[in-house]
């Protein structure tokens, strides 16, 4: 009886996972089609790429259509969509992990100072002007260095006699974060001409997407997500509290370190290429927890897929709604995310997923 119930649960979970995967593929194909391109030859009205053309290009029959279609689909839209999938996935998985680790429903990937750290790094490179002079990757590079250094510093400060208390980590993260925010505000104040670049970077967006970026982000994010997944059961135990987890045979300190490092790493890579995109890491885990429950063995992959899907759609809105200009995707995620989050809180006031002491 007991076992059958669990088998049913497993089948249900596999179905949800499979349908989300299909939804992702479907999303990628549909979204590739959405958007306008400037009028061919610089004259007439903007036109759309026909659906058939998208399918043909994606299945390697692009020669049937004008070359420009292939260029737009393969070199502009596809890397951007894939980056959106990767970043959405990274932010959602990182958020799910942080929420479990901190036993705090308000936790997100940027909780322990990652965002201001990245922002300071990025602002630094913009301010020095090296973003243009040396390489287009210098801003992402500085952002990720800033993010990782911050997380590392928070970690070192919060550590006492080889142990990390999550409460201390949280507070240290907030303190270091506010310090860096002040540094960044000062840099922006002094920035003059470059202010707009900094501001734009902070709002986040996928406009830097290219195949090169996808090739860098892909292995890091996928590796991070897989490693976190391997510790899903341990994460379940840690949500019960550190001492109960120890009594279940979990090496809590080791697991905490691994999960912190890899969830920061994937979020750091995401931030490096896309700036700060809020709310994905906060609301996707919540929504998915309502859908599949709190077991991280299913929650993590489901959040990964849902995060990818959500960010792809948010980015599509961002690049089309005011076409030909695009608005930062962070604005879209916050605009949809915040009201939806409030709705969820209202609906779940009884606290099925909101943390509460007993």
């Amino acid at each position: 009886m007991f076992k059958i119930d669990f088998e049913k649960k497993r089948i249900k979970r596999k179905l949800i996972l499979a349908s989300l995967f299909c939804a992702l593929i479907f999303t990628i194909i549909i979204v590739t089609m959405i958007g306008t391109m400037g009028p061919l030859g610089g004259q007439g009205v903007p036109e759309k790429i026909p659906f058939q053309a998208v399918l043909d290009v994606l299945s390697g029959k692009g020669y049937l259509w004008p070359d420009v279609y292939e260029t737009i689909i393969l070199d502009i839209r596809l890397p951007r969509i894939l980056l959106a999938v990767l970043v959405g996935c990274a932010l959602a998985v990182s958020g799910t992990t942080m929420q479990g680790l901190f036993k705090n429903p308000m936790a997100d990937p940027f909780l322990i100072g990652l965002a201001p750290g990245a922002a300071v790094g990025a602002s630094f490179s913009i301010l020095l002007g090296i973003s243009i002079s040396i390489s287009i990757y210098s801003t992402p590079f500085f952002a990720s260095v800033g993010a990782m250094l911050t997380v590392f510093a928070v970690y070192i400060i919060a550590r006492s006699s080889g142990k990390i208390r999550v409460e201390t980590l949280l507070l240290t993260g907030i303190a270091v974060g506010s310090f860096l925010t002040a540094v960044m505000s000062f840099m922006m104040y002094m920035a003059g001409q470059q202010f707009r670049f900094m501001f734009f970077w902070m709002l986040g967006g996928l406009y830097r997407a290219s195949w090169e970026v996808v090739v860098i982000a892909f292995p890091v994010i996928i590796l991070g997500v897989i490693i976190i997944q391997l510790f899903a059961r341990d994460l379940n135990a840690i949500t019960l509290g550190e001492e109960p987890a120890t009594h279940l045979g979990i090496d809590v300190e080791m697991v905490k370190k691994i999960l912190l490092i890899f969830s920061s790493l994937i979020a750091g890579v995401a931030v490096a290429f896309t700036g700060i995109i809020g709310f994905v890491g906060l609301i996707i885990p919540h929504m998915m927890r309502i859908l599949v429950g709190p077991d991280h063995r299913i929650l993590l992959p489901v959040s990964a897929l849902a995060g990818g899907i959500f960010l792809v759609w948010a980015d599509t809105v961002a690049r089309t709604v005011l076409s030909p200009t695009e608005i930062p995707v962070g604005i879209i995620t916050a605009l949809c995310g915040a009201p939806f989050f409030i709705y969820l809180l209202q609906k779940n006031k009884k606290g099925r997923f909101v943390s509460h002491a007993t």
Partner: protein
Amino acid sequence: MLVTLLKIDNIDFSYPGAKILEDVTFEMKSGEFLGIMGPNGSGKTTLLRCLSNALSPQIGTVLIDGKDIQRLSKKEIARNIGVVPQTSSVDFAFAVSELVLMGRTPHTERFKSETTHDFEIAEEAMRLTNILHLSERTFDELSGGERQRVIIARALAQEPKILLLDEATVHLDISSKFEILNLVRNLSKQREIIVIAVFHDLNLAAQYSDKLILLDNGKIASMGLPHEVLTPENIQKTYHIDVIVKQHPITNTPYVTPCPFAKNSEDGKGHTVHMICGGGSGSNIMRLLLDNGFKVTTGVLNVLDSDFVTAKNLKIPVIGEIPFSQITNDSHKANIKLIKKANFVVVTDFQIGAGNLKNIEAAEFALDSKVPVIVIDSTPISDKDFIGGDLEKHFNQLREHQAIFVKNPKMALNIILKEAAT
């Protein structure tokens, strides 16, 4: 089934600057239930945490079947030891069945999911703890007793040889307390599990434990069978309160009733009050007098009288008489002797028959020797007269000799306090 041996060998534990445990040594084997008691800060929880390897003692070892627990991996320890804390909180909406299945974590490898065997063990644990019907509920929907049963089920799913309970019933209502402890005791007997439970409630500890350890300042103050450990002397030494230890009427285990002195005042100035009482009528006022700084003596009481027992427990000098016999002349003389030394005599409301009539004569003697006598007279004289109607005559005589008649013990106390003050 193999017998498991748990050996705690001479462990010392200190936090920087504070020694918590010292020279703790004991042994247990399968199926035994050990209760650990002691005042707050005596090291009970620390001892339990050393046993579960949450803390490492600086000196000494914890051995399970001869193996040092510190050399076992965390998983191996979790396969041997289950822990039930005081309270648990589950912040995420895990179903009860999922929580219990987590108990299989130490038996499952990282890359594998639970097997049929794991499901069977978890289901059996839920059956034993009677929570199968709660399977799909979440933790926050459960009552305190149900929650503890879930935590116990999870610990059982670990298939432990040793179960540690850290005041696991302290927040539960009285029926849940017994339900949980009955469950754990049965498990320890049926499944041959070593149970070590920290108790605050001495009577629960006595009722459920095979053996008890009384900790005081990190040392074992007393160890042994419940009636050997729970003596008024041991409890006075560790908890610094006076208690009466009786036998539980049904289980025959020791039953501890605290009778702490609440020294309200020193207004009694060490004056002595002699009590003439019986049938429990004097117990309350004995306490009141002691609490106010008086010395108390009493007599003559037959040794089965509840006032006699109270006087003994309160360490009040008392003249005893064999039950169902008349007060002998020797006892009467001893009583008179105490009255002569007393500053006041109190006569309480008790039934007077041929056997104890001499006590009233003793009161008359007190008046003759100018010792003030206060008579508590709240029941009609006919209710306490077992000498065929002559009692009224005796009472009138007391009145004539200026005995003070009052309605209740409180008034008697007030009069004595007033007199003592002058």
